[in-house]
């Protein structure tokens, strides 16, 4: 069977897994829900019905955030790995996530009025992500090579992480707890009313990634070769940074920093699909990423009556052995 045919079957498999897993995800929890209650909670919401409140305010936002976070982080991870031609790159190498962490840390752990005002954690995380996105954009204009930009991003991330650690050591137990909980990630912070804007921004970010499929395909050959083949490197770089800032900032703001997905999923997809066609890789990454977080969250929901697990813990526990397994099986 040809690779194209295998990949089409794989993509189809991933595509039909999404609705099946979504239904499983929606139906697991402390209460049993009916289809009627599900539709009523969306179109004819009754504020006095516990079941409808749980569906509308907890299960639907949680499902949507699992899909959006998984898809967005995986797409960004793929873009970063292609831009830097490095399988170790992920959504966080540019320090954008660190920018969010810094602003959230400042909002929780300092008494500075601007950071502790009504902005809240979400707004602070968004401001942090976009501010550091701009900083990276500024550096991308100054440096010529991808590797230099990668180093700047990593150094910026390390510098901010050290500063956040300093804030943590100087904070009290209560503040430390709030920050640590945020840093563990959560799919449950989002409200139903916030979903439309989150979905719109995520869709725009992901669609924008499909507009640069051609330069991405050429970038695989290397930066110099891409230039020789007529790719406008500066413009491509700017577009990738903007998409990264939008999608990483969005997910980090509403879910906290979710580790591993952006790094692991694109690598798994490359191993499974055996292609450098970014159209296929992008679709596969966003589907696989969404499925990966959905499965993690289903497992979290299953153990929830006994103990509570943060999403960040499970993504790494499941993801790391998965990557090692695929590497051993396919790349030996």
């Amino acid at each position: 069977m040809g690779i194209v045919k295998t990949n089409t079957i794989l993509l189809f498999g991933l595509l039909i897994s999404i609705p099946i897993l979504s239904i499983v995800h929606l139906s697991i929890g402390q209460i049993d829900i009916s289809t009627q209650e599900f539709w009523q909670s969306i179109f004819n919401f009754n504020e006095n019905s516990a079941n409808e409140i749980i569906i509308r305010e907890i299960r639907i936002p949680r499902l949507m955030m699992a899909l959006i976070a998984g898809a967005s982080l995986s797409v960004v991870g793929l873009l970063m790995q292609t831009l830097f031609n490095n399988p170790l790159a992920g959504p966080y190498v540019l320090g954008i996530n660190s920018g969010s962490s810094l602003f959230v840390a400042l909002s929780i752990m300092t008494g500075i009025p601007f950071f502790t005002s009504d902005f809240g954690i979400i707004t602070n995380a968004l401001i942090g992500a976009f501010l550091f996105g701009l900083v990276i954009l500024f550096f991308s204009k100054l440096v010529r090579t991808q590797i230099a930009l990668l180093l700047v991003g990593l150094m910026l991330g390390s510098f901010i992480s050290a500063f956040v650690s300093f804030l943590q050591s100087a904070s009290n137990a209560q503040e430390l707890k709030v920050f640590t909980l945020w840093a563990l990630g959560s799919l449950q912070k989002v409200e139903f009313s916030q979903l439309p804007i989150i979905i719109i921004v995520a869709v725009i970010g992901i669609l924008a990634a499909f507009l640069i499929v051609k330069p991405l395909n050429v970038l695989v050959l290397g930066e110099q070769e891409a230039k020789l083949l007529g790719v406008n490197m500066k413009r491509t770089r700017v577009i990738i940074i903007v998409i990264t800032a939008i999608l990483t900032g969005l997910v980090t703001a509403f879910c906290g920093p979710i580790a591993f997905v952006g790094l692991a999923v694109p690598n798994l997809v490359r191993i499974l699909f055996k292609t450098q066609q970014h159209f296929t890789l992008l679709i596969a990454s966003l589907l696989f990423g969404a499925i990966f977080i959905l499965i993690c969250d289903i497992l979290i929901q299953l153990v929830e009556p006994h103990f509570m697990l943060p999403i960040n813990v499970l993504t790494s526990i499941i993801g790391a052995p998965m990557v090692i397994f695929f590497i051993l099986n396919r790349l030996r």
Partner: protein
Amino acid sequence: MLLSKILLLLSATLILFSCEREPTDCCNDNTTALFESTSIDYASNFDLVKTNIGYSLKILNPENGELEKTISIKTEKNKIISLSATVNGMISNINAQKFLAGVGNRNYIYDSIILNRILNNEILEFGDEMNISTEKIISSSANIILYSGFGNEFPNESKLNKLNINIIPIYDWREQHPLGKAEWIKLIGVLMGKEKEANTYFDYVVREYEKILSATDTLSNLPSVLSGSLYGDIWYAPGGNGYFSTLLKDAGANYIYSATKGTASQEYSMEKILKDNLSTDYWINSGLSTKAAINNGNPKAKYLKAYKSSTYCYSGNLNKFWEQSASAPHIVLRDLVQILHPEIMLSKELYFYKRIE
């Protein structure tokens, strides 16, 4: 108009002042007889046994009730570092602030005498217990450190023990009965050379607590109560065997999670909280003090019936609650009765709590 506002402000200040003195008023009570030795009646996580040189203190593990450590203590004025807010409150109750060598952080101190002594460098600040400087402890010449025992072992405990510095975990927060929690003041009294004052104070607390209890034990209408708040994705609610669950029961409440086991906090998902508490009457200890803060931190709470009109949190100064409430369970109980059964009218003002408007 202005005059009436000034009068209102003055009267509020007077009420607040009179309220704030309440936890220590007992010590002028001369009705308690002199005693021979300290006995432990309510607390289950420590015991004091009289010896030739003072007391043998036994600290019991709250998880299994087994003996965790035995420390020989002298009933003289020890030099103490207190890293526990409840201990600081107990020290204030028996007016022993001058024997305090150190505290954690001045930002978490309510007692004005302790605060003044910090400002005058008579009490040192040691910061968080997990990052505490061992050298600073040694140079302070303190011989006892009291801490909450949230973690496993105090940093460098064995080294400090070799230097004759005793580390004592204060497991008052794992007691089942509020009076057991308050009874830890007897240990503080022994350590501070103020055994008599501590016993007198505790006897007063027991009498007051039982007086209020007698007013609620015939109540038949028990409003349902939810307690605790959301951190991250987890709602922490008092354990069914914990002291706060006992306080709610004694205040004539039907605490939703009273049947759960254990003294430590129980963890629930927001989904379970919504499922169990949509029509619960009261929400006590909401953690956040305004509706705006609740909407920001836990917007899903707006669906709880209690959120609309019957949500209560610690009033104003959080330090006041954490410092004073452990050794003043009678006042916490009075507040709870006042909230849940205003028809009994034990007092006109709430001391620790306020309703979130």
